[in-house]
């Protein structure tokens, strides 16, 4: 194992929350012991090392391995590491289901599910057909000016201070503003949403996650109820009226949809923005290239999304199958770590290097029928943030005395980092 993982010594520098062994799901008997390998991306784990620095060594190992605690911090999962294998699993709804990958409803004793993320055939297609029109490129393009306005508000707010805490001062709130706009929710809820989001996604204490989930669910139910009585020109009202093939959203589906947008559309954007600015702060040449050539920003964003991919969802095996020659049995969890696939040396020559115009396809938005429905909106938000920041703010870097901690899961994200520039 040590030879496979030359970086194993670095694992000492990961702070993984302890778990009472009675809560751990036992390793299934069919998992070969030589495929059980170390894995840093465990729920609640943090480190001061660059989180992506663990990845290259994994690509010297088997194409798929078993990692303890890779699912929800308490259960082991298969971890495929190549683009090909991720494509295969994303596209295979015969042997794998998406249902049950997110724990939120179960945690509060309810049984709705994320719509459409946790839906399987045939209902997934119906649900996706219902909500797709809300996210077409043209509809997202219509939000351009609003999004630019929000970005400028934040940037002009800190420009003359010569620095900012990137997560607290910009990255967390900006996508929330866009989300509230999209949903037709009042903008004075930003601080509230931030708090909920953090309880839900970044609290090591399970009870806090449960409380956060309950608060968000209560709030969304209230708003849905309100739109039933007072329909408006917004996404929730639209969701209520939606009808396809003679069916409407059930109460639970509508909640599952709103919750899916909350859980899928906020922290993901914050995180990817964070990595883009973190990277450019440490690579002044590329920063000045993009400042001089803003038309290169879209391709650069996709390249940084590949190298700093941050999301891992999962599937559950429902029929026995094989992945790269390894037997996967019903009940096995399979993680879909986009951050490993982004560094697949077979798919991407010299995978560690950010080449602004590489124009390589990545799986950071997923693949197949569940491909991110918010992709066009997310790209727009990230592009506008970068355009406006580079336009308004001179060369920026990470404060020299910065002591940065990174989350390794549920999403690979800097907890906070200070940027500085000459005001």
């Amino acid at each position: 194992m040590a030879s496979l993982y030359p970086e194993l010594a670095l694992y000492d520098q990961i702070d993984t929350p302890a778990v009472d062994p009675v809560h751990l799901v036992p390793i299934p008997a069919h998992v070969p012991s030589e495929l059980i390998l170390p894995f840093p991306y465990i729920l609640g784990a943090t480190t001061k090392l660059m989180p992506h620095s663990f990845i290259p060594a994994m690509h010297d190992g088997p194409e798929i391995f078993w990692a303890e605690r890779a699912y929800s911090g308490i259960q082991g999962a298969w971890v495929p590491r190549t683009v090909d294998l991720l494509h295969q699993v994303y596209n295979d709804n015969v042997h794998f289901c998406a249902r049950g990958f997110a724990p939120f409803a179960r945690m509060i004793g309810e049984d709705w599910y994320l719509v459409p993320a946790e839906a399987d055939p045939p209902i997934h297609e119906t649900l996706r057909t219902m909500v797709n029109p809300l996210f077409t490129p043209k509809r997202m393009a219509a939000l351009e000016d609003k999004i630019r306005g929000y970005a400028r508000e934040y940037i002009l707010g800190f420009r003359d201070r010569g620095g900012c805490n990137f997560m607290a001062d910009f990255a967390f709130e900006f996508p929330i503003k866009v989300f509230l706009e999209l949903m037709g929710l009042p903008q004075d809820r930003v601080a509230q949403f931030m708090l909920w989001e953090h309880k839900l996604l970044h609290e090591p204490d399970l009870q806090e996650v449960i409380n956060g989930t309950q608060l968000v669910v209560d709030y969304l139910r209230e708003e849905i109820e309100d739109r039933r009585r007072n329909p408006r020109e917004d996404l929730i009202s639209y969701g209520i009226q939606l009808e396809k093939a003679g069916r409407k959203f059930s109460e639970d589906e509508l909640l599952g949809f709103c919750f899916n947008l909350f859980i899928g559309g906020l922290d993901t954007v914050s995180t990817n923005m964070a990595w883009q600015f973190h990277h450019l702060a440490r690579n002044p040449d590329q920063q000045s290239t993009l400042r001089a050539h803003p038309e290169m920003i879209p391709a650069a964003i996709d390249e940084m999304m590949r190298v700093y991919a941050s999301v891992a969802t999962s599937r559950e095996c429902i029929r026995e199958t094989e992945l790269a020659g390894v037997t996967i049995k019903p009940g096995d969890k399979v993680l879909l770590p986009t951050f490993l696939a982004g560094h697949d040396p077979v798919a991407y020559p010299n995978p560690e290097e950010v080449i602004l115009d590489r124009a390589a396809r990545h799986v950071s938005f997923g693949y197949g029928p569940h491909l991110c429905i918010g992709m066009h909106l997310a790209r727009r938000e990230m592009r506008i943030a970068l355009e406006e920041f580079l336009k308004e703010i001179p060369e920026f870097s990470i404060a020299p005395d910065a002591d940065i901690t990174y989350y390794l899961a549920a999403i690979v994200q800097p907890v906070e980092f200070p940027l500085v520039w000459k005001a």
Partner: protein
Amino acid sequence: MAKIIYRTADGFDHVRDVAIDTSVMRGAVDTGVPGINAECGGSAACATCQVQLDDAWVARVPPARDLEDSMLDEEDQARNIRLSCQIIVTPELDGLLVHIPSA
């Protein structure tokens, strides 16, 4: 095989022999026709494989299913924009001409 003609915005015709039962998207992506990203790999989930049917072919290509339609704005539908991953190549489509939008 059926012959499919992919005309790019610069007026160039990329002529390809595409296997029956594969998609118009596959025929382009696998042979390096530019302008078709196909990020979802053919699931009608990304809308990055758009083509515009040539007027002469509109009546001969089977219509879009609901899922495909839901990914396109009405304006696109009116211009006969389609997701090329949802157009399955059949012998009847031999000679199909599609236009690849510029952006």
